[in-house]
């Protein structure tokens, strides 16, 4: 049976890889966490102005988990994010402008207004968007990493599931399949205490999610998900294992969902003291700021500069997103199949002329980019 460790701290004395990062990369971690938070705050403002179409999902207090894990991947690796992994997507190259356009359902958004919020991807940049049915991305990422293995490519895959999503058949079949095939896949269970209103005690009888690693015969590790360096460390170990041909890992990140399931959710079921305690004592950005200031001797001004840069970037992206066009209704007809390239409008839709619609590219991709299109 592969070794199993409860916490990184209890591990067999491996070096703290996070500590080996140079200062630039350490500040990078800060930048991505701050960008995640600021961008989500901007989205809240836009949501209140009813400029967001549909629901808004926050990762407040979980930024370290997303950013630290994605940071452990190489450019060529592929991850599949969840709704609370905005940070992972940003690290992988998704831009604030794309995120804002998505949430506002714009015509030149990465999905051309077809899919919700951050449900988009880009196989070039290395992320594949989730779909709503929970757990489904685990089998899909098994297939992606199977391809890496078949082709002898030096690439790794990473997929996130919530504590709630571990209860799905898709999660089970996917991780088991990957484990048996020995695929280079890291499965991260983000244990944020809640699945919508359901506490983990109603989701599993296991003492901890990392225990599931034993049942799948894979490497397992549990880590403090709000310690970005520890998250990086733990993920890096699993990624290195995967790259070395040692197969699947199941990592459990201990964190907490400080906002409701979505913005409309008033969290009536969450003990307010619990939320406050995590906010006061265990905010991943606050904690990391202290590490940077106290241990790394970074100047406060350096952090302020990053904060200011983030605000500038988000401001600029907001302006650009708000100026971007709504989709044209007829765009709905394009690209259900490669062939035919467009559906015919139903006969009672007079004047729906789609002859000039062209064809969309779709050869392992995930993001619509007008400049690369044959469409008008």
């Amino acid at each position, binding site marked *: 049976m592969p070794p199993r460790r409860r916490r990184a701290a209890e591990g067999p004395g491996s070096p703290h890889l996070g500590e080996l990062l140079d200062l630039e990369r350490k500040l990078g971690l800060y930048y991505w966490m701050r960008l995640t938070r600021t961008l989500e705050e901007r989205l809240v403002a836009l949501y209140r102005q009813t400029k967001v179409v*549909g629901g808004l999902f926050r990762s407040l207090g979980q930024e370290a988990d997303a950013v630290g894990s994605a940071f452990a991947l190489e450019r060529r690796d592929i991850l599949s994010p969840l709704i609370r992994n905005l940070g992972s997507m940003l690290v992988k190259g998704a831009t604030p402008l794309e995120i804002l356009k998505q949430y506002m*359902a714009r015509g030149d958004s990465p999905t051309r207004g*077809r*899919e919700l919020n951050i449900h988009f991807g880009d196989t070039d940049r290395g992320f594949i968007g989730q779909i*709503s*049915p929970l757990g489904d991305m685990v089998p899909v990422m098994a297939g992606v990493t199977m391809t890496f293995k078949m082709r002898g490519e030096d690439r790794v895959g990473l997929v996130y599931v919530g504590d709630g999503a571990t209860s799905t*058949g898709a999660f089970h079949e996917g991780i088991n399949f990957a484990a048996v095939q020995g695929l280079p896949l890291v499965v991260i269970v983000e244990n944020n205490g809640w699945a919508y209103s359901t506490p983990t005690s109603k*989701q599993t009888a296991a003492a901890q999610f990392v225990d599931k690693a034993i049942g799948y015969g894979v490497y397992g590790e549990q880590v403090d998900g709000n310690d970005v360096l520890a998250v990086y460390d733990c993920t890096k170990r699993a990624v290195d294992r995967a790259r070395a041909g040692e197969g699947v890992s199941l990592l459990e990140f201990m964190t907490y969902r400080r906002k409701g399931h979505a913005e409309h959710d008033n969290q009536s079921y969450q003990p307010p003291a619990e939320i406050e305690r995590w906010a006061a004592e265990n905010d991943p950005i606050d904690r990391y700021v202290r590490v940077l200031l106290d241990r790394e001797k970074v100047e406060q001004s350096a952090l302020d500069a990053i904060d200011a840069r983030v605000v500038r970037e988000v401001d600029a992206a907001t302006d650009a997103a708000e100026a971007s066009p709504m989709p044209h209704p007829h765009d*709905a007809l394009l690209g259900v199949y490669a062939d035919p390239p467009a*559906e015919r409008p139903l006969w009672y839709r007079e004047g729906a002329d789609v002859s000039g619609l062209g064809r969309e590219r779709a050869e392992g991709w995930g993001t619509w980019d007008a400049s690369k299109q044959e469409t008008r």
Partner: protein
Amino acid sequence: MAGTEITYLEAIREALDEEMARDENVFMMGEDIGAFGGAFKVTEGLLARYGEQRVIDTPISEIAIVGAAAGAGHMGMRPVVEMQFIDFIANAYDMLTNYVATARYRAFLPCPMVVRGPSGGYVRGGPFHSQNPEAGFIHTPGLKVVYPATAEDAKGLMKAAIRDDDCVLFFEHKYLYRRIKGVMPAGDHVVPIGKARTAREGTDLSIITYAATVHKALEAAQRLAAEDGLSVEVIDLRTLSPLDDEAIFATVRKTNRVLVVHEDTRTGGIAGEITARINESCFAHLDAPVLRVTAHDIPLPYAPALEDFVLPQTDDIVLAARRLAAW
């Protein structure tokens, strides 16, 4: 509180409440249906009233929820389970079509259970929170399917579904949840499964539909009356399996022109089945082809302009009806 208007959603809740009070074998399972009262608050208050033994928050496991309901049904219980969005019923497709639907026939095991959930579009829910998955289940012998359009029917059909000795899939249109209201008939209001309703009487042509598009059909009928002087009959199917052939054939014989409207995608949607039945049984009564107004065959996109293009709209119904009338 006779005489008070309540919403479609409240009507469903009232039915659940009354049935739980009436029959101790009725209980609920689903994700977040307890303290939280469900994603749309349909089950709000039921936990407080009936306790954790009868309002059960489950793991995110649609296969297990449906399978456990079947097992409880075999033992004489009457489970009512919620899909947080009906779209996730796809995860339980095997359990429903292979296990539940066949249990009585192959093993004499009853599955008196209801699978209910928020369905349908027009709400900017995107491809996985807007589905109308009825076609795959109408196709399955052993299941019943209802899809009410009014608050009164939502209540009455839910009560019938819970009392039915077989599995009933109960689709609730989320666009109607809070937009449609009705005054509940006094007493034990049960609407029989399998009976359509004439939502509007007419003589020139018939629109056969169900769920949210009933309201679009009624709007269209009003416009057609005002603008074209056409008398349009609107049939609200209410139950999709078993179909009310009698009501369908009666309206065909009356108006001789039929438009079938549904929000579901076109190919393989229930309109095809209805057309085939009309064709077989009322061919001589048809003065024009049966026409269909449906969604386009496209996964439902999320941006308003796109969703509105893909889904059938009142204008479409008006246009199609005019063509039919002029045939």
